C-alpha cells in the first residue's frame, strides 16, 4: 500500500487551520508537517457522546461545537472550532467526564500514541494540556449550580448566636433583651432544655394588644414546646417546612441520641435558630438580596462577609454569558450599596449632618463600569451654608467611609482622589473655583490626575449639590479649546495596544511580564476618548456607552463611529470580565492583566479589531482637538 509519509503541500489548508489552534500554534511548520499524516478526519452528528474509554486521542473541533459535562450533567466547558480536548487526560481528575457534540461536527483526531509523543517532545505543548486540564477541573469543582445550593446544610446558614431567657423572666425583660441584641426572636430555655420561643409578633399580639402586665413571666405568652428542625436538614427542607407551616423563626436542634426511631428525635441540644431572612440570605447568588442585606450590616467587617459571594457571582455571570455592561451595572449597584451603608453607619455614630452634602462617585464607579479590583474614587460636596467649625464632621465621615471601603476591598485611591483628601471635600463654592482653575489654565499633567473627576455621579445625599457642580463643570469645559487640547494630549499619550510581539504590546517587566494590561491599554484609552467628545459637547452622561449613544444622537459623532467604539469597548470589557472569572476559578488574585497567548483565536481577532478602532478614534481626537494648543 502506498501510504508512506509524504509531504503534501496540498494539505496546507489543514496545516493553516492547525496554526490557529492553541497550542499547535507553538509548533513550527516543519513540526506541523510531521503531525499532519497522523491526523484522522472524523465526522459525527449532534448528540454523539465521547467517553474517556473510547479509543483516546486528542480531538480537535474543525467545525461544529461540543460541551464537556460530568456524568451527573454538570457543565464543565463548552467550545467550538479550533478547540481540542483529550478525554483520557481530563478523566484523570474527573473520571466521569463526557464530551457531547452540540452541533454536527467535523473532528480531527490525533491518535493517543502520537498525542503522547507530542507532549513528550514539546514542553509548551505539554504544559498547555496540563494547565487546561487543571483549569477546567477546578472550575467544575468550584461551580455550585442552583440545585446544589438548595441542598446546602442549614448548619452554616442558621444563627448560632443564641439569645435566651428563662421562663420566669418578665415580658419586659425579654423585650429589652431582644432590643439590645437586635433580634426578632428569643428562645426560652431552662438550662439546656428548650421550653418555648417568643417572637416580635408574639410581643405585639399576645402582650401589647392584650394589655398584659409587662412584669408577668414570659412563659405566659411564649409558644411552648416549639417544633424544631434537625441540624442535618438542608436548605430545601427548611424552606419547605417553614413556608408550609408559616413559621418565620425556628430553633435548630441536634438529633437526640437517646431517642428511638426517626420521628420526633430532634430534641437534642439546641444549636441555633433559623429565620426566614437567613433563608433569603442563603440565596447568596442573588445580587438583589445581597444589596438588601448590606443595609442590615453593622460594620465594615460584616459587609465584607456578604461581599465574599461576589467572586462566585462573577464566575456565574461570566459563564452564563451575561453582557458585561449588565455585570458592571450590578457590581456598581453593590458598591453603591456598600458606600451608602457605610455612610449611614457613620452618620449614626456622628449624628446628623450639620448641613446638606452629597457623596460623589468618580471613575468607574461614577461611570457604572466597575469590575473587580477597582480602587475607590470619591469626593464630597457640601452645601455653601456650612459653617467653618462644622467642617470637621465631614472629615470624620469621610475617614470612616473611606476606611470602611478599603476594608471591604475597595482599596484606597493611589492618586488620593478620595473624600478624605481636603481638596476633594469642599463646599460647592470652593469646588466651583477648583473647576474654574482646572479649566482656565490647564496643564496636561494636572488634568491627567483629575480626569476621572469629569465622570461624576451623585451616590448619596443631596443630589442637587452634585448636579450643580456637574453643570458648572460642563459650562466651563464645553467648547473650551484650550482645556480640550490639554485633555487630548493625555489621550494621545497612551499608545494603542497594537504592537509587534504577536501584535500585542505586552508589559516588559515586573510581575506581569508578557501580559497585556487590558484596563490601562484598552479600556482607559476608550474612556478618555469618549470623555473628551462628551465634554466638548457638554453632555451630562457619564457612562461610556450612554455617552456614545448621546454623541450619536446629537450628531456630534457619526453613528458608525459611535457603534464601532461601543462594540470595541464591549469586546474588551467582556474579555476582561472573562479573564477575571478565569483568574477566580484558578484561585488567583483578580487583575486587569491577561496573557495574550491564552486567548482563543476568535477573541484575539476581536481584540485586534477593537484596538484598531481605538487607534482610529485617537486619530480623530488628534485632528479635532489638538490644534487648540
Amino acid at each position, binding site marked *: 500500500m502506498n501510504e508512506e*509519509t509524504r509531504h*503534501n503541500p*496540498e494539505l496546507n489548508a489543514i496545516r493553516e487551520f492547525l496554526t490557529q489552534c492553541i497550542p499547535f500554534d507553538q509548533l513550527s511548520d516543519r513540526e506541523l508537517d510531521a503531525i499532519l*499524516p497522523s*491526523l484522522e*478526519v472524523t465526522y459525527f452528528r449532534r448528540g454523539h457522546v465521547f467517553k474517556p474509554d473510547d479509543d483516546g486521542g486528542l480531538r480537535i473541533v474543525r467545525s*461544529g461545537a461540543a460541551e464537556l459535562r460530568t456524568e451527573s450533567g454538570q457543565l464543565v466547558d463548552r467550545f467550538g472550532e479550533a478547540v481540542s480536548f483529550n478525554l483520557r487526560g481530563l478523566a484523570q481528575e474527573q473520571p466521569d467526564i463526557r464530551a457531547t457534540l452540540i452541533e454536527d461536527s467535523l473532528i480531527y*483526531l490525533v491518535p493517543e500514541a502520537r498525542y503522547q509523543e507530542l507532549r513528550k517532545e514539546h514542553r509548551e505543548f505539554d504544559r498547555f494540556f496540563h494547565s487546561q486540564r487543571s483549569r477546567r477541573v477546578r472550575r467544575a469543582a468550584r461551580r455550585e449550580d442552583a440545585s446544589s445550593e438548595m441542598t446546602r446544610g442549614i448548619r452554616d446558614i442558621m444563627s448560632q448566636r443564641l439569645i435566651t431567657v428563662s421562663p420566669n423572666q418578665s415580658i419586659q425583660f425579654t423585650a429589652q433583651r431582644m432590643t439590645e441584641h437586635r433580634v426578632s426572636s428569643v428562645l426560652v430555655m431552662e438550662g439546656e432544655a428548650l421550653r418555648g420561643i417568643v417572637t416580635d409578633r408574639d410581643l405585639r399580639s399576645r402582650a401589647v394588644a392584650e394589655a398584659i402586665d409587662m412584669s408577668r413571666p414570659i412563659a405566659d405568652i411564649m409558644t411552648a414546646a416549639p417544633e424544631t428542625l434537625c441540624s442535618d436538614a438542608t436548605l430545601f427542607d427548611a424552606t419547605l417546612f417553614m413556608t408550609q407551616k408559616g413559621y418565620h423563626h425556628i430553633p435548630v436542634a441536634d438529633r437526640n441520641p437517646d431517642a428511638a426511631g426517626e420521628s420526633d428525635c430532634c430534641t437534642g441540644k439546641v444549636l441555633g435558630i433559623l429565620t426566614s431572612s437567613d433563608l433569603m440570605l442563603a440565596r447568596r447568588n442573588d445580587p438583589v438580596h445581597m444589596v438588601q442585606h448590606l443595609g442590615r450590616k453593622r460594620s465594615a467587617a460584616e459587609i465584607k462577609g456578604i461581599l465574599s459571594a461576589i467572586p462566585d457571582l462573577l464566575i456565574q455571570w461570566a459563564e452564563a454569558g451575561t453582557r458585561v455592561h449588565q455585570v458592571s451595572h450590578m457590581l456598581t449597584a453593590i458598591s453603591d450599596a456598600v458606600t451608602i451603608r457605610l455612610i449611614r453607619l457613620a452618620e449614626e455614630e456622628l449624628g446628623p449632618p450639620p448641613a446638606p452634602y452629597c457623596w460623589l462617585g468618580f471613575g468607574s464607579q461614577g461611570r457604572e463600569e466597575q469590575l473587580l479590583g477597582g480602587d475607590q474614587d470619591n469626593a464630597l460636596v457640601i452645601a455653601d451654608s456650612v459653617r467653618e467649625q462644622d467642617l470637621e464632621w465631614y472629615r470624620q465621615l469621610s475617614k470612616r467611609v473611606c476606611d470602611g471601603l478599603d476594608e471591604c476591598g475597595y482599596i484606597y485611591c493611589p492618586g488620593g482622589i478620595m473624600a478624605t483628601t481636603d481638596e476633594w471635600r469642599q463646599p460647592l463654592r470652593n469646588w466651583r473655583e477648583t473647576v474654574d482653575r482646572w479649566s482656565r489654565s490647564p496643564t496636561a499633567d494636572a488634568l491627567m490626575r483629575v480626569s476621572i473627576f469629569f465622570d461624576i455621579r451623585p451616590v448619596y445625599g443631596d443630589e442637587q449639590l452634585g448636579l450643580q457642580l456637574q453643570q458648572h463643570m460642563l459650562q466651563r469645559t464645553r467648547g473650551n479649546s484650550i482645556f480640550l487640547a490639554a485633555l487630548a494630549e493625555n489621550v494621545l499619550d497612551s499608545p494603542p495596544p497594537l504592537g509587534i510581539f504577536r501584535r500585542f504590546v505586552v508589559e516588559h517587566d515586573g510581575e506581569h511580564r508578557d501580559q497585556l494590561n487590558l484596563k490601562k491599554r484598552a479600556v482607559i484609552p476608550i474612556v478618555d476618548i469618549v470623555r473628551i467628545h462628551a465634554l466638548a459637547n457638554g453632555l451630562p452622561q457619564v457612562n461610556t456607552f450612554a455617552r456614545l449613544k448621546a454623541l450619536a444622537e446629537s450628531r456630534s459623532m457619526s453613528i458608525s463611529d459611535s457603534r464601532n467604539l461601543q462594540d470595541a469597548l464591549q469586546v474588551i470589557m467582556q474579555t476582561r470580565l472573562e479573564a477575571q472569572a478565569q483568574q477566580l476559578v484558578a484561585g488567583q488574585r483578580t487583575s486587569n492583566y491577561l496573557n495574550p497567548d491564552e486567548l482563543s483565536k476568535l477573541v484575539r481577532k476581536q481584540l485586534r479589531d477593537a484596538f484598531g478602532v481605538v487607534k482610529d478614534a485617537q486619530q480623530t481626537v488628534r485632528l479635532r482637538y489638538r490644534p487648540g494648543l
Partner: protein
Amino acid sequence: MPRGFSLEVRRAYWELLRKSRNRPQEQRAELLHDIWRKSPLKSRTPWREQEFLVVDAETSGLQVKDSELLSLGWVVIRDGRVPLQSARHILIRPEKGVGESATVHQLRDCELEEGMTEAEALLELLQAACGRVLVFHHAPLDMAFLNRACWRSFRLPLLMPVVDTMAIEKRTLEHKHVPLVRNTLRLSTCCSRYGLPPGTVHNALSDALATAQLLLAQVAHKGGDVRLGDLL
C-alpha cells in the same frame, strides 16, 4: 453510470480480463484482474467495514475528447475515518499544454513537466484502488477520463463500483423536495450544507478530501446502519 453490475456484465468483463492476460503486450492488465477479483462487493457490507478510495481528478477541460488529465488526488476512508497518511497528490505530464484551465486549478505547464505519465499515474491509482470502492463527486466526468486512460493502457474499460457523493446528495435533496437550482450540487455548496469547511483552491487532493468529508457527513446524516448498497 455503474451502480452495481448485472451478472451478464460481470461475466463479459471477466472474460475480457481473462483473455487479455494471455496477450503478452498487456501483462499489466493483470492488475485489473486483481482489482476485479478482490472486489467481493456485497451490498450488505456495513459501510464502516468497507474501505473507500476518494478521488478527484483535475483536467484541462470538461470534454473528454479534447482534454487531458492533469492531476489526481485521493484519500482513503477506513473504519469510517480519513487517515491523512493516505493522502496522495499526483501531477500528470500532459501531451498538450494546459491552456485556459490553468486559471481554475492553478496548475502551470512548468509544474506539470515534472509530473508522471498518465499511464504511470493510472497504475498508481489502480494499486491504491485495489480492494476499495471508488468515490467521486460527480463521478461520470472523472470516470470518463479514467476510463479513457485505462483503455489506452490496457485496451480495456475501467469497470469498478463507484460511489458518487453528488448522486447521493441529489437523491437526498429530491427526497426532501428541495428544488435543484444552479450550484445546488456543487462540491462547495454540498459541503457548506453540512457545516463542513469550504475547500480552498481547486486542487485534486483538497477536493478529494472535501469529497471524503462530505461522504462522512452524508453517511452520518443517513443514520442507523448504513450499508454499502445504500451508497452505490
